[in-house]
């Protein structure tokens, strides 16, 4: 069975696309082959900056012959219908077979497809694969219309067997296939003729091309750590950079260079970012001091001077880059430690729009500061310090370093705040208030950082809610889902119990005040104060409204009163949705979360999570699972009876009407459970409450086994319904069990 070798040779493919492209080539070609009946033994794909390669082993030399039977029209069908069928089948009338069926005489065609030579199929499949290749971005070149990631120069396509190799002939927009490739652009540019994959890989190796990206990455990493180790240093690991660099070279040569002494005093993050982003250098640090002292660059070739020229050039470029960074760093430090200090930066943010409906960055910072102060006592932070931290947390957006390296935002602010003599907590908040950025990013734990990080996210959410820019479907341009998950994780992972409602309301009001010019500043301030006072929006709004003079109650204020409650509920719902995703990832079922969300106090997300986890744990026990059945049975009977009787059976069950032991036992069990549950719930000890609830399972099951609720005796029946009501009330004080599935 022959082997197939394909290589698509082009101008330099972007590093980030290579691995995926090799996999896509494998998938497209092998799927095409299999679909055409060509099965194969093995397939492997490779990529370098200039080539995608696919090696298929043990492929059938031809596709098998196939026979397909096709059912046609009735034998006496109109001529037209029969003609159509014949055309479709590619047969003549005398080749059809008539068969008697229950529906009459029907025509059948037997279509035989002879097997096809593999070369024919490969040519078709490859051409289709090239034309339909799923590049993330593709282009045309010259006068052609073919699209490829960069100009495609040649196609190598051969089938090889023991008796030799043959070129699979194809022509894609003037590019004809052959059996030649080229080696390294500079070290071995000549054409190379190949006869098989083994021959190809070996010849490429001699021509300074390492075909496998993994092998290149491995070489780079091993050489890098060895050269660093030999100098008593270690390479800062960066797998993303390693993969990228492996995609920039066909023949990696690792070189270690010096960082001029002038720059060693820069923060390590600055060195690392500058070297990585601009130069794709690895950072090399001194394990004793943690300082970054050298760099590793990866050249694409060997040279007669062992890379001396290349290294000197790279060192020079780096010096120019770092001179820029140092210039920014020193200028920034000068500003931060000047009399005006970082507030000069905040002031210049007055000219930077955050969003055209939500004001400038400076206004955003002010809102964030107010909310940080509001939240501070709830998270154990000092209100003034939290507000101070919030006012400085984004100051570095005006710094030169962050303008140059946006990814250093926050971190630079923290350095500058320290230099400016701010407290450690304020400095840390600058760095940490953006966190968590991703689901695996750490959440801040220091109180001031927590207050500012929460404020940052709640302000963002309420701001975009205020102006109706909620995420829809896959569109979430302001990363609000991430912000919501951030709020959840900060609260839950720090075990902070906090009723969100009033903070959401207050911040909605502040953002509404920002986005609607008809709302006066002092009115907004009053309203926010009243919300803090009353804890609820409705009463606060009423109080402020009553204080207003005639005519001050304008449309904008009226609208505010109507909108805030709805938006607040909607935003809490959004947080709950995110919470469901968060908990589902931790194995808590959707319906369990729903059962807990339905309870009072669901704006305390930490409490909600505790309740859900406790319920989830309880329901995973045998008692818990069966309790649900008992509860549902009780609830169903009760609901039906209430509907039929038009009354609510809510109290008055009396043990003196109990007829059997099981009934009496249930009374006793409920007494016991209620006594245990109420204080446990008050102490937010859900585990205790729920295990007390689960203990009802036995008595409830026994009750239903022994007793017919709908007794002929009206008094007994009523008493039993009222007893069921106690089950409902008791269980429902823990969670809304009607929402549990099953």
């Amino acid at each position: 069975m022959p082997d197939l070798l394909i290589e698509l040779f082009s101008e330099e493919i972007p590093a980030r696309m290579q691995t995926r492209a090799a996999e896509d080539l494998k998938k497209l070609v092998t799927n095409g082959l299999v679909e055409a009946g060509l099965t194969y033994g093995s397939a492997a794909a490779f990529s370098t900056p200039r080539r995608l390669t696919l090696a298929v082993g043990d492929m059938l030399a031809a596709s098998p012959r196939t026979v397909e039977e096709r059912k046609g029209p009735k034998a006496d069908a109109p001529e037209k219908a029969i003609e159509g069928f014949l055309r479709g089948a590619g047969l003549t009338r005398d080749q059809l077979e008539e068969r008697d069926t229950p529906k009459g005489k029907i025509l059948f065609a037997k279509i035989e497809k002879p097997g096809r030579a593999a070369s024919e199929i490969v040519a078709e499949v490859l051409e289709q694969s090239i034309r339909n290749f799923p590049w993330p971005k593709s282009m045309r070149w010259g006068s052609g219309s073919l699209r490829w990631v960069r100009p495609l120069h040649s196609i190598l396509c051969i089938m090889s067997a023991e008796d030799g190799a043959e070129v699979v002939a194809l022509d894609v927009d003037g590019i004809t296939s052959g059996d030649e490739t080229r080696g390294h652009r500079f070290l071995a540019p000549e054409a190379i003729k190949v006869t098989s994959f083994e021959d190809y890989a070996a010849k490429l190796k001699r021509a300074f091309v390492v075909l496998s990206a993994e092998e290149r990455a491995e070489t780079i990493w091993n050489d890098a750590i060895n050269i660093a180790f030999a100098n008593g240093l270690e390479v800062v690991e960066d797998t993303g950079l390693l993969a990228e660099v492996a995609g920039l070279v066909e023949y990696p040569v690792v070189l270690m260079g010096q960082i001029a002494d002038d720059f060693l005093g820069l923060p390590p993050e600055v060195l690392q970012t500058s070297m990585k982003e601009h130069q794709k250098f690895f950072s090399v640090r001194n394990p004793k001091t943690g300082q970054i002292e050298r760099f590793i660059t990866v050249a694409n070739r060997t040279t007669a001077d062992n890379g001396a020229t290349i290294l000197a050039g790279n060192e020079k470029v780096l010096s120019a880059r770092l001179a820029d960074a140092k210039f920014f760093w020193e200028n920034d430090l000068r500003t931060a430690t000047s009399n005006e200090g970082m507030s000069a930066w905040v002031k210049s943010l007055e000219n930077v729009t955050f969003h055209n409906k939500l004001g400038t960055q400076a206004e955003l910072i002010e809102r964030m500061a107010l909310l940080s102060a509001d939240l501070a006592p709830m998270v154990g932070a000092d209100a003034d310090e939290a507000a101070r931290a919030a006012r400085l947390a984004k100051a570095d957006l005006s710094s030169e370093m962050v303008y140059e390296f946006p990814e250093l935002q926050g971190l630079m602010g923290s350095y500058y705040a320290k230099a400016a003599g701010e407290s450690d907590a304020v400095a840390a908040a600058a760095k940490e208030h953006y966190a968590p950025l991703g689901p695996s990013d750490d959440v801040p734990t220091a109180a001031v950082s927590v207050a500012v990080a929460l404020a940052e996210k709640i302000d963002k959410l309420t701001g975009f809610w205020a102006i109706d820019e909620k995420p829809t479907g896959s569109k979430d341009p302001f990363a609000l889902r991430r912000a919501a998950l951030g709020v959840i994780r900060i609260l839950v992972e720090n075990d902070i119990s906090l009723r969100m409602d009033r903070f959401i309301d207050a911040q909605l009001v502040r953002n509404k005040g920002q986005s609607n010019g008809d709302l006066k500043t002092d009115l907004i301030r009053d309203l926010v104060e009243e919300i803090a006072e009353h804890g609820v929006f409705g009463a606060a709004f009423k109080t402020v409204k009553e204080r207003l003079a005639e005519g001050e109650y304008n449309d904008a204020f009226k609208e505010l009163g109507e909108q805030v409650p709805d938006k607040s509920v909607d935003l809490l719902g959004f947080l709950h949705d995110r919470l469901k995703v968060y908990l589902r990832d931790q194995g808590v079922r959707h319906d369990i979360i729903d059962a807990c969300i339905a309870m009072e106090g669901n704006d305390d997300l930490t409490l909600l999570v505790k309740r859900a986890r406790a319920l989830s744990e309880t329901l995973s026990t045998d008692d818990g699972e069966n309790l649900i059945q008992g509860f549902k049975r009780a609830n169903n009977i009760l609901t039906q009876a209430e509907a039929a009787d038009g009354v609510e059976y809510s109290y008055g069950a009396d043990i003196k009407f109990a007829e059997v032991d099981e009934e009496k036992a249930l009374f006793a069990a409920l007494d016991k459970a209620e006594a245990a549950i109420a204080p446990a719930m008050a102490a937010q000890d859900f585990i205790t409450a729920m295990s007390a609830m689960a203990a009802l399972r036995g008595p409830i099951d026994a009750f239903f086994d022994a007793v017919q609720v709908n007794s002929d005796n009206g008094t007994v029946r009523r008493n039993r319904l009222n007893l069921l009501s106690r089950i409902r009330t008791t269980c429902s004080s823990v969670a809304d069990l009607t929402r549990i599935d099953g």
Partner: protein
Amino acid sequence: MSEKPQTPRSFQAIILALQNYWAQHGCAILQPYDMEVGAGTFHPATTLRSLGSQPWAAAYVQPSRRPTDGRYGENPNRLQHYYQYQVLIKPSPPNLQELYLGSLEAIGINMDLHDIRFVEDDWESPTLGAWGLGWEVWCDGMEVSQFTYFQQVGGHDCAPVSGELTYGLERLAMYVLGVDHVMDMPFNDPDALIPLTYRDVFKQTEEEYARWNFDTANTEVLLRQFEEAEAHCKVILEQPATDPKTGKRIIMAHPAYDQCIKASHMFNLLDARGVISVTERQAYIGRVRALSKMCADAFVQTRAGGWSEDAA
């Protein structure tokens, strides 16, 4: 064919070597466009000529201005006025990468000692409504050129596709000449009777323009000029295709495009004065883009833009 190139010793020797090289390889050597532009791409020989079906091959030096990059001539690498070398060939020849590498050899870069890399860098000009795919070319880790296959200009698909090469001349020359500060670079031959450095030629103007760009330029005037250029561009393009005086079909794509260039430069100056907010920025860029699109629409209705009587 050509002898082993001599290692250049001055900024101008590098420019001359490039001029010679691309002349030898069939390009029309044009002169700089006589207007303030932000990059060589703005020259109509690139922007407009990349449109339509007519073949084209041109190379030229283009003085370019980026007011925000002014550093009073003190930064070793940053200038508000600098030179770009620009090559545009349509359709892009299959050996464009090799041609380009040849040009590096021509200015004295020894291919056996250096590490040349093509690193993904897609080009987009929001003001020109243009984009292309290509690379920045690295020599020992330094970006020495931008290499782009134009896909769209002024909102029009490029067919055939032009290959565009842009060399940042100062940076490239500093590297080849081994100079650390641009102002130290010999402009003419260091052994000339009157040797001149880049400092002698440009230090003073860098200072003057930096002061003007950052602090003195009258923003009201600039704003007015922006709006005048914008209005003017539209008026020019509103004229009927047939010139009433000569009776000829004369679509004034180039004069209109001049106004577009002017508007773009005014925008850059306003930006340097720091009076354009982030949100306004987008709006200004959109306005310039609208002009360049209109100019592109007009150009493809001209002969140079591929229009012909027979096809019409």
